[in-house]
């Protein structure tokens, strides 16, 4: 039987099912903990560290830590938000992110996080890596300049046998995510669209479909990322 546990976030008392990950438990209590590599329904990986919180005084990733009775979580604190902001900034300078002509602008989670954390001007030097646009697949373009290596596509886009259609290639700071050379033909139109939607940035683009969604109707055009959770009135378990 599920056991309900009591814990607190920034001093606010919360309830959740034992074993739920802290991000999900917070969400059910109407509290937003920012995430990037995490995606609902996909096994968490704890890769990007945007969801960093302090659990009982220690910095941990909220997407991979299960809640337990009496946990004291610090979330919306200056110190923690500064860490998150720095991670977002580092992701920007580490790739080549030019929002103005990006199909994902307005729907992009990285851009939305930058707005949420008030990234106003570059603080770290740009590394301007030389990366390519891989347009060789007939259905999608993999824009390596924008990839943040969150691994969402690798974890979520599987063929009918459950094999990942996307895979890593290369090593070290040259590592790339691309369509697996052997499984590329398994990428159906539906999966291609799902991959584009699941990509938090504009790194996976379905071919010939850019800019169909008008400005003003995009996900983060009017409301900042996380506001849907914060405005959620949740029935507690």
């Amino acid at each position, binding site marked *: 039987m599920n056991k309900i546990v009591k814990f607190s976030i920034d001093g606010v008392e919360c309830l959740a099912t034992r074993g739920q990950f802290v991000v999900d438990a917070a969400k059910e209590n109407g509290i937003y903990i920012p995430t990037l590599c995490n995606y609902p329904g996909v096994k968490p990986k704890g890769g990007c560290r945007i969801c960093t919180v302090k659990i009982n005084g220690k910095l941990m990733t909220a997407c991979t830590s299960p809640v337990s009775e009496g946990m004291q979580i610090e979330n919306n604190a200056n110190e923690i938000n500064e860490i998150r902001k720095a991670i977002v900034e580092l992701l920007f300078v580490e790739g080549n992110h030019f929002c103005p002509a990006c*199909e994902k602008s307005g729907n992009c989670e990285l851009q939305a996080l930058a707005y949420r954390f008030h990234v106003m001007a570059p603080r770290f030097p740009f590394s301007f890596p030389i990366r390519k*646009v891989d347009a060789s697949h007939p259905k999608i*373009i993999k824009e390596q300049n924008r990839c943040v290596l969150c691994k969402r596509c690798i974890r979520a886009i599987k063929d009918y046998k459950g094999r990942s259609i996307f895979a890593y290639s290369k090593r070290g700071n040259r590592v790339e995510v691309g369509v697996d050379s052997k499984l590329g033909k398994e990428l159906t139109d539906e999966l291609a669209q799902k991959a584009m939607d699941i990509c938090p940035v504009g790194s996976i683009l379905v071919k*010939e479909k*850019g*800019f*169909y969604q*008008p400005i003003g109707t995009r996900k983060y055009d009017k409301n900042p990322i996380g506001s849907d959770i914060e405005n959620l009135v949740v029935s507690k378990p």
Partner: protein
Amino acid sequence: MGQKITIEPVTRVEGHGKVTIHLDNDGNVEQTRLHIVEFRGFERFVQGRPYWEAPVLVQRLCGICPVSHHLAAAKALDVIVGAGNGNGLTPTGEKMRRLMHYGQFFQSHTLHFFHLASPDLLFGIDADPAIRNIIGVAMEHKELAVQGVMMRKYGQEVIRATAGKKIHGTGAVPGGINKHLTEAEKEYLLNGHDPMNIDKMISWSEGALEFFHDYHKNHKEIIDGFVEFPSSYLSLVRKDGALDIYHGVLRAVDANGKKILHDVDYQDYNKYIDEEVRSWSYMKFPYLKQIGKNDGWYTVGPLARLNTIDFIDTSLAQKEFEKFRAYSNGKPSHRPMHMHWARLIEILHAAEKMKELLNDPDLLKGELVKKGTKKFEGVGLIEAPRGTLFHHYKIDENDQIVMANLIVSTTNNNQPMNNAVNQVATKFLTGQKEITEGMLNAVEVSIRAYDPCLSCATHAIGQMPLEISLYDHKDQLIDKRRS
């Protein structure tokens, strides 16, 4: 002793340029050049990008008339996605784009006339620069300044309703448009609170023409007599010869109005037009191939359009056009200050067109996008406020752009502007002992009439100030003025 004058930066134009004037020992103008000193290279960095990004990416060339680049690129890509050669879109697709384009004509021309050009007219070419600017206009001719600001705003609102955003929107996609006009947007633009409605915009446009006619009557020497620059003219015209800034065939006429390019399909533009590179400017020099490098240059823009077309298909603007044509006895007008006149007629035409479109039900419903058999190359032409704009793309089988060629309006006007500078410098500076600010402004006025966008022309960033330098015959800098 000979001298060289440099005007840098040229002011109240978009972008950055400089003029150099060489005087010989006797103070005669020996050589003049308008140098465009910015470089950006959009044609290069668009290579490798997915083709559908081009309309959104390339419009970043310019903050004044990005819509022109947005639409010219989209038109080129219409060809690539098999949606005809500029006239194969759905009614909704084409009309929404047209509305966007008229909105931008309205705002850009208004900006030029009220903010950039009117100070010269209102205060005189040799007035104190401290008042010869838009702030001076606002202080002394409040009503005019307010109209300028509000008309510009109206145009921007039309762009926002069609492209999602006032500057650098996304409305046009290859093969069509991404949105309808909503009822609320239609209502706001048609019948908005005074003065933000189309009827007021039409009446203010008529008012601006009245102001011009009045001014013209009392200042013939400025509007007619400043100088004359005989030239050939090139523009798009509708197949039946009407003014059409969105789509048509290419026509050129010589200085007497005789057709020298006979309404040709612009997909073959490079059969008729070539570009020459000269070492001292980042801006190329286009010319009509059949006539050759030396004499094949031509002028584009408002004056060129009104010199090439046969008529205007909106009644108020047509009446004004008739006056305009009659004034030059049915021949092309070569007077640079008549560009302002032509621009005002186009403002009125754009306002009338917007009214027509805003009442059109096709904007509110209907198919947005159309596609057909894919091609790997496409050319898109449009009349930007400053003149004919060419976008040409080739893509590969992976949908990546492999070639882009852009000939922007200001580039088309490169030779005419250089000629203008030469003529005005010769007229105002020859034999003068002292070079005054007023004389140098006369040079700038001649450039300004073309409403050049030098950032666009070299695809460069920043504002467009201009500098004039004066050099002696040994190329020693003697004097420099930065306005």
